[in-house]
């Protein structure tokens, strides 16, 4: 053994040591994923390419539309960019705040590092860089297709593309810095029980901010002859000189037209502010870290909850149709779900957006579009509902069986059949899914004034999709569980989770295709008010297909669970 250190002069290591370790961990992670589940890598690449292609097509169409009319383009392109970057600013600030909070105040790593001889500024700087790294998805997912779409419109793509990347990279740290300070503020001042609620409040706030911006577009319809003046006046906030988003909007506009001097001026303005704000956020947070950490790890809020008996009674009523032992587990899962705003807020945001879109649909005046559009819109609605539902079941329903892992000995000893455990999970998932998705589709059918008989078809197919998706997630979750893992995100992103996600997306696509084919046939044969026998057979076929997919997975899961040793 060495003599015990007597040195009192210690020069702490800097960020490089921590970054090297994180880089090493990232490389190890990449190797492990490639070795363990190449399907996951392929699926991820496939999905990213699909999203890229979709976004590229969308951006390309928008710019094609603008190019057709130079005057409209001159007004609209800066506005589109303005909106895009304002929305990105708000959403990235929010997601960075969540990432920074979880990274600094609710993980063991930060506590571990802060007991080591490291400067708090080093720890915060590394965490900040980590958060920025994770938020760079926006560049990959959104920025590149946008850049390629715009590059086709500009005469100097070799100049434009590097400048665009530079603008994007210099912009990302600004919401990162705002997110870091927001996370510190949340940890330092919000009582603990309120903190989770704050996530939901912030989510809704971010949502309202985006919707508020988008709603202004609808003013076009209401303002008669002066709509352009009113519209531009209302949109003026997007181009405010104080907003970082406006700097890169203007810079990119100059880059598009190969005006290099003003483009570089805006680039340097963005870089200067990024550097200053990053420094400010790191120093501010690090120098006040301990009081915030102290409060985050130990603060106690006083949020009162319903007594267990009362809440159990209310939630039990939701599952009135279940036998007692199954109901107990379903109530437990629903109670756990409702007490975790991080779970329900995500579904609330997605379906909240869907609801706002549906409520605003009359302004689009779909009936004045071509009949094909009128046919397409319900399909798009169903597609959106289906994909959101697939995301929900893959992220939150799939891990349910795995999460019972530590209590599996208890489940194994309970005086109930193991299949009842799966039916309880299924009942819980169906309850949440049906309420939000059938509710959203019902709203869509009312808003679109779809005839009763087709409204029933829409709702029946949506219900069957719920059965299929919930059955797949619970069944595959039981067939490919990760009992040793407690982290739901890791369970969902494991091999079983990837298989489930692919199966769920495939199911939605198949149902959507079948539903679309039936609707198209009804349109071609003028069967909008009175479907024929073939249509009904087709509808029954789609419903049976969706339900069988779910029930087959459930049977597979039950068989596997019965074979497991407790």
């Amino acid at each position, binding site marked *: 053994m060495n003599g*015990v250190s007597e040195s009192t002069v210690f020069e702490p290591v800097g960020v490089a040591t921590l970054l090297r370790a994180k880089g090493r961990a990232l490389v190890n992670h990449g190797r492990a994923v490639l070795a363990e589940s190449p399907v996951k890598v392929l699926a991820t690449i496939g999905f990213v390419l699909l999203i890229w292609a979709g976004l590229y097509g969308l951006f390309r169409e928008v710019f094609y539309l603008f190019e057709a009319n130079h005057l409209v383009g001159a007004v609209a392109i800066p506005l589109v960019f303005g909106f895009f970057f304002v929305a990105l600013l708000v959403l990235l600030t929010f997601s960075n705040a969540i990432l920074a909070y979880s990274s600094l105040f609710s993980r063991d790593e930060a506590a571990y590092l802060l007991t080591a001889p490291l400067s708090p500024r080093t720890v915060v700087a590394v965490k900040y860089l980590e958060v920025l790294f994770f938020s760079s998805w926006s560049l990959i997912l959104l920025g590149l297709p946008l850049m390629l779409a715009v590059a086709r419109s500009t005469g100097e793509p070799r100049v434009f593309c590097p400048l665009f990347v530079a603008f994007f990279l210099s912009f990302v740290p600004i919401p990162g810095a705002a997110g870091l300070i927001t996370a510190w503020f949340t940890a330092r001042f919000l009582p603990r029980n309120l903190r989770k609620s704050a996530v939901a409040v912030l989510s809704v706030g971010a949502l309202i901010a985006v919707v508020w911006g988008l709603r202004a577009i609808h003013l076009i319809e209401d303002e008669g002859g002066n709509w352009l003046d009113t519209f531009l006046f209302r949109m003026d906030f997007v181009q405010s000189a104080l907003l970082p988003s406006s700097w890169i909007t203007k810079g990119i506009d100059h880059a598009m037209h190969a005006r290099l001097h003003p483009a570089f001026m805006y680039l340097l303005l963005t870089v200067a502010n990024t550097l200053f704000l990053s420094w400010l956020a790191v120093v501010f947070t690090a120098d006040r870290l301990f009081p915030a950490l102290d409060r985050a790890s130990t603060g106690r809020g006083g949020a009162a909850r319903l007594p267990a008996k009362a809440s159990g009674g209310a939630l039990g009523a939701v599952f009135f149709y279940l036998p007692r032992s199954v109901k107990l587990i379903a109530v437990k899962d629903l109670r756990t779900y409702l007490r975790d705003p991080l779970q329900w807020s995500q579904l609330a945001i997605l379906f909240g957006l869907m609801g706002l879109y549906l409520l605003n649909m009359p302004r689009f005046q779909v009936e004045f579009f071509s009949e094909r559009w009128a046919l397409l819109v319900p399909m798009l609605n169903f597609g959106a509902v289906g994909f959101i539902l697939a995301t929900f079941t893959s992220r939150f329903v799939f891990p349910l069986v795995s999460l019972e892992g530590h209590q599996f000995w208890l489940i194994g000893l309970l005086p109930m059949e193991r299949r009842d455990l799966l039916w309880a999970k299924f009942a819980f998932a169906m309850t949440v899914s049906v309420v939000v998705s059938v509710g959203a589709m019902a709203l869509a059918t009312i808003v679109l004034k779809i005839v009763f008989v087709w409204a029933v078809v829409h709702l029946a197919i949506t219900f069957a999709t719920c059965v299929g998706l919930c059955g797949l997630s619970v069944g595959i979750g039981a067939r490919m569980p990760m009992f040793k893992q407690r982290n739901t995100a890791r369970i969902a992103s494991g091999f079983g989770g990837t298989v489930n996600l692919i199966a769920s997306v495939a199911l939605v696509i198949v149902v959507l295709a079948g539903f679309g084919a039936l609707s198209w046939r009804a349109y071609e044969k003028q069967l909008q008010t009175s479907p024929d026998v073939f249509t009904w057979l087709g509808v029954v076929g789609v419903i049976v297909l969706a339900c069988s997919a779910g029930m087959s997975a459930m049977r597979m899961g039950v068989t596997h669970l019965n074979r497991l040793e407790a």
Partner: protein
Amino acid sequence: MADETDAHTDGAVAIDLRQVTRRFGDKVAVNDLSLSIPRGELFAFLGPNGAGKTTTIKMIVGLLRPTAGSVGVCGHCMSVDGLPARAQLAYVPDQPFLYDKLTGLEFLYFVAEMYRVSDADRDRAIAELTARFDMAEFLDHLTETYSHGMKQKVVLAAALLHDPAVLIVDEPMVGLDPRTARQVKNIFVERTRHGGAVFITTHTLEVAEAVADRIGIIHEGRLIALGTLDDLRTRARRQQSLEDIFLQLTEPEHEWGV
């Protein structure tokens, strides 16, 4: 808040708690705790669940600040001069932290770099600790595949890597097999013989009875007993095991009389 003018300049004292109080809202988790642990002492800190042990440890390592009073480590006030204090201590929490995607060896290299251990010292220490904790078979695997006991071994090895003056271990024996548990006890004793201080909390009273130089018992945030095992026996006025003394002192009706 802590009085930052308090001087903790006596380097011979490894851990120095002066009238430390820590409140969480209305709850007083640690109440006017004064404790001085010299170098070369193995101190066992005992108490029922929720008595204030972990809160005390978190204040010693700098993760929590005292509401009143001050904490010193090796002559440095933790609130004012935390960096040199932290450079001289190592903390092993009850739930060991490791980077899932690093191997055990990569984690040890990382810790050695953080504490500025030279490559030669690092390699020698890792070789010695690998042999003592029997880690050779799994040190090249990602730590996410480790059992609790394996993780505990690597974390203990990482804590010892920089040869800390103060070693603080929360529940050191949880998850360890008997052979490793014996090794850990031996290491604790060796460290105190070489002038280091070891501060452990444990519910395994036999461990405290076997290795501790002094024992402190905390109950409802107050230090209700402090001394050697013989001191505690004298206070209990009869020969009995540490378990009997602990149960007697921490029973709800007991009048502490301190």
